């Protein structure tokens, strides 16, 4: 670790005058991670998603568990522009960092978010190969939203409330998934109308 850090330090010092990228930390630090532009980009997008998560938690919900999932707009945009790997990073970073912010890390709520995010990502991994001529972000969003509630209901049933009574709630969650999935997909599609500007400036 020590000599690796020194090597990067040297490299940074020699290339520093030419580097316009600012987010590199103090090169004298002996623990310097070699980050790429892609890493910075993922971190930026995850931060935007995190902001949307916090915004969303401020909105009162009529039923616990029914949330618009605004952060998934970011996941959809990242998926369309930078591929599934980046989208998975953004989504999972958002879940972990969000739980740390709200103090629910490793609590039931965290595992609900995680299972929802993982199921969404698995479905998106397949859905991204739908022909883009006919299928847009709205389709991705709806499939991901349904996968999200499916993953959550599975965790709820297998772990938290092993009672068939929760089946009564499934139609409500499914309807919410359809509505919010469509809305999120439309918003994501709208944002991708004009590429070129940095994404962070255009998100609400």
């Amino acid at each position, binding site marked *: 670790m020590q000599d690796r850090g020194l090597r990067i330090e040297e490299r940074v010092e020699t290339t520093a005058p030419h580097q316009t990228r600012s987010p590199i930390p103090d090169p004298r630090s002996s623990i310097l991670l070699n980050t790429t532009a892609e890493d910075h980009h993922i971190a930026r997008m995850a931060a935007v998603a995190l902001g949307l998560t916090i915004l969303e938690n401020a909105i009162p919900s009529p039923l616990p568990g029914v949330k618009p999932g605004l952060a998934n707009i970011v996941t959809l945009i990242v998926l369309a522009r930078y591929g599934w790997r980046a989208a998975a990073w953004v989504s999972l970073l958002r879940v972990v960092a969000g739980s740390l912010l709200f103090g629910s890390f490793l609590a039931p709520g965290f595992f609900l978010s995680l299972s929802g995010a993982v199921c969404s990502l698995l479905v998106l991994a397949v859905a991204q190969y739908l022909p883009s*001529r*006919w*299928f*847009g972000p*709205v389709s991705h969003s709806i499939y991901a939203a349904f996968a999200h509630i499916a993953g959550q209901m599975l965790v709820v049933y297998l772990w938290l409330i092993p009672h068939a009574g929760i089946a*009564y709630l499934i139609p409500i969650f499914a309807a919410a998934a*359809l509505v919010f999935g469509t809305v999120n997909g439309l918003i994501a599609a*709208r944002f991708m109308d004009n590429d070129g500007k940095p994404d962070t400036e255009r998100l609400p």
Partner: protein
Amino acid sequence: MNSHEPIRVAILSHLKVGDWLTLLLGGVCVVLLTLKLWSGDLADKAVIRSGGKIFCEVPLSRDQQIEVPGPLGASVIRIQQRKARIVSDPSPRQYCVRQGWLQQAGEIAICLPNQVSVELTGSRKKYDSLNY
């Protein structure tokens, strides 16, 4: 980005053929889930027993009043607006009368002294710890 364009245009221009299909599929899924999970367990029949044997089975769709004979006298059962209750009963403590209206499948009112019971059943038989 022109923010003054009508919202209808903003929505329609972002929906491709496959998106409509997905929406349709999602809508059908929601409707099927609702029908399956919300109407399957509603009670649609009342099973009336007397002395342990089935006295009669009546649908909840028709409002009516039934007199069931028992060892102490007649128990009166009323079906009204897809609900059922024991209206009057000759037994001393009147527990089954005070139980009121039964609405969900699996609910049961039992009159032990007069050996009369009313049980609501849905489209499929549910099991509980008593008859498992």
